């Protein structure tokens, strides 16, 4: 039933045995022991499970692992530099203390990274649209908006 699958995650190749239909999220969390992508709904409705697929933010909770073998997968763990320097988006979130429980942070940060790559000068409306798929129950969205705007302002020029 299982078969070997090779994934490129955070710059490293991993070959693992998995059910080919298994959604990427389960493989990342259980087989690669990553904590960034979170289970929130399994329905592509909340964004907790976001990862970067070839630089685009996508939910990982439904997409079968075999559909992403040719993609570069980056998770929250893959954003900071090896020396611990945070990605500018992560740093902006930290500076704004943009979370309460933090469960949604993965989806927020991954979405913001993809958004700012596509639209480095994003304004209010573009940011809101880019973050629309991610839910937060703690009401941290106002801080998240400030953090993303800060990241726009701080981007290396």
């Amino acid at each position, binding site marked *: *039933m299982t078969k070997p699958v090779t994934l490129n995650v955070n710059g490293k190749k991993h070959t693992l045995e998995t*059910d080919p*239909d*298994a*959604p990427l999220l*389960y493989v990342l*969390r*259980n087989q690669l*022991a*990553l*904590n*960034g992508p*979170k*289970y*929130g*709904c*399994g*329905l592509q*409705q*909340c964004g*907790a499970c976001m990862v970067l697929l070839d630089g685009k933010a996508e939910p990982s909770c439904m997409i079968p692992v075999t559909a992403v073998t040719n993609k570069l997968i980056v*998770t*929250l*763990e893959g*954003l*900071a530099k090896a020396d611990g320097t*945070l990605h500018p988006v*992560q740093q902006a*979130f*930290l500076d704004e*203390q943009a*979370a*309460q*429980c*933090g*469960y*949604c*942070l*993965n989806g927020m*940060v991954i979405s913001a990274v993809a958004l700012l790559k596509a639209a480095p000068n994003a304004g209010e409306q573009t*940011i*809101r*649209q880019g*973050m*629309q798929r*991610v*839910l*937060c*129950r*703690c*009401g*941290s*969205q*106002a*801080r998240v*908006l400030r953090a993303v705007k800060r990241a726009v302002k701080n981007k290396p020029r």
Partner: protein
Amino acid sequence: MNTGRRNFLKSIGSLTILFSLDHTHTLASLLPADPELPGILQRVPAINAWLEVLASGSVRVFTGKIEMGQGLCTAVAQVAAEELDMEMRQVEVIISETNVTPNEGYTGGGSSTETSVLAVRYAAAAARKELMDLAAQALAVPAEALLMNNGRIAAKQGGRAVSFYELLNGKKLTGEVKLPLTVKRKEDYRLSGKSVKREDFRQMITGQSMYIQDLRFPGMVHARTVRPPGYQSMPGKMDEAALAKQIPGLLKMVVNGGFLGVICTDEYQAVKAQRYLEANTRWDVITPPRSTKALPEQLKELQAQTRTVKTPALPFPEDRVTLKASYSKPYIMHGSIGPSCAIALYHNNELEVWTHGQGAYPARDTLSRLLGIPAASIHVKCVRGAGCFGHNGAEDAAAEAALLAVAYPGKHVRLQWSRAEEHAWEPYGTAMCMELAAVLEPGGRISHFRSDVWSDAHSTHPGGNPELLISANYLARPFIRKPNPVGGGGYRNADAYYNIPNQTVTAHFFTGPLRVSNLRSLGTYANIFALESFMDELAAKAETDPFAFRLMHLEDARAKETLFRLQEKVSRLPKEKNTAIGIAFSRYKNNAAYSAVAAQVTLDPATGKATVKKMWCVADAGEIISPDNAVNQLEGGMIQAASWTLFEEVKFEGGMVTSRDWASYPIIRFSDVPEVEAEIIQRPGEKLCGIGEIVMGVSAGAIGNAVARVSGKRVRDLPIYGTR
């Protein structure tokens, strides 16, 4: 202790340091503490129950509460580091765990957290005294001539220094926290009252192990549960062989009455097994009668127990009533972004459970009675989950993981609820109805006020009673649920804080169609929504401005100041077309924190849609430990309240909840999130009050009032975007 656990300890233990540390306060600068210690310190006075000195030079602080994103760990570390003149990163915080932390019951949002923070402050102050006395002996210097700094004590005049650890020589602190007790003077605070960055933030933002969902144990197996279609249904005959054929990794199917669980080696196999059983299980469904009436009518028709809350000097003059209005609020979900999860291990007749529930000790007592295992053989550890805002599915999941673990001993069994399970099975914040009436005197003052509230219970935390666990109700030998308790938070804030001479308040308690328990702010949300809507309606009758109308009914200077400051923020805003401001005020529980909120709402004349553009809040919660964390709570509270007020309503039909995902139960998304601004009035000399729950009702009131102003339509039945 396993490594997973150790990681967690590390992750919540090390906290940031933002201040340089040449602080030289002396005992002479200390003042007597409050005349009374928090009740928990009277029950658990031993200093070592709260605080222990580690060989590493750090101290470990124990709180019986849990971290829910409200910043408890940071606040606890802040006050302990303050009293002991340490760096915050030298303070490690352990949250609720049986036989490890004090038993502080459940963690609520209102003020119980603050009590725990105070307890730690006093325990740290008592520890300071004991350590100073020990150092005085060891160094042969009077305590007054000593200086404490970063876990060491030295003579002011220089000379030898000893560390806390050397002083205790591996032993524990032996003293008790009792009065008289000296604590640091608030003027000398260098941490408390200042915004500190949460060190857990770096761990969250880099995806380190933090949450219960991130716990991994060697050999851990994965479980899923299969729910009946409604609250009362029993499965037909189950065929484990057929399931095993479908699911090669199936380890066990557990059937206990209507409780159905599967255990697999691999998580996705468990999901597949769950789906297979959902599609292939026949249930005997008991369907309660359907009602075609609107929810408020349905609720008012239920049998109710009445409680008189407030009786006036003069009876309500029915013939002179100026205004009557009925309001309602539907069932609302906690709607945590992370569905409930738990891990349990049953081994050699001992049960270990990891839960994100709100208290380890009450969970242990419930498990003991559910499973017939002595409490002494059960160990419960609370681990962080996603923000819950009250009693959600966490404790149910913990009990179910335990049921599964007992049926499959020797392995860590991890149970993860699905989104549909969390949506349909958690205990909601109850639906409520409010009928208000008032008499206005000719001068525009309210002389009589009457409030009738219909509510179900606001707390059904099991706390030792398995019948309050959902699956315990349909086990083969079920624990039968009794009608819900009367009282609790149903009439919280149903009486007005305003100066109204004759107030009649009556509560009507029913046991409603859906499972309920505590949700952030309990009955206050609905009661303040109704009262503050009503105040605006009365102000209009009195032809008085909403600010002036409220102020003329207030005497408390702190109450007035919150309104004055709010008025300053919004009264000079430029007038815009199709835009209006609504305001609301309350004092939480009429005895705790004050808050005033304004909402700016615009109306799209083409679509008729009202959008909340901005919200402002001014709050006075007495002493504040961390202002930025308090602002965070207020901002988040306004946005969550906007979500409840605009969008949220649990839908059900024939006893079955039909709100089963984020499409059928939408909550606010970025497109509708208002800008928010919160200001805190800091009063270091005043009592510490909870801030987490205080803006929920006022936010609803302000939004409702703004919508009424801009559209001319008064919405009295929430949610505002609802179809009723």
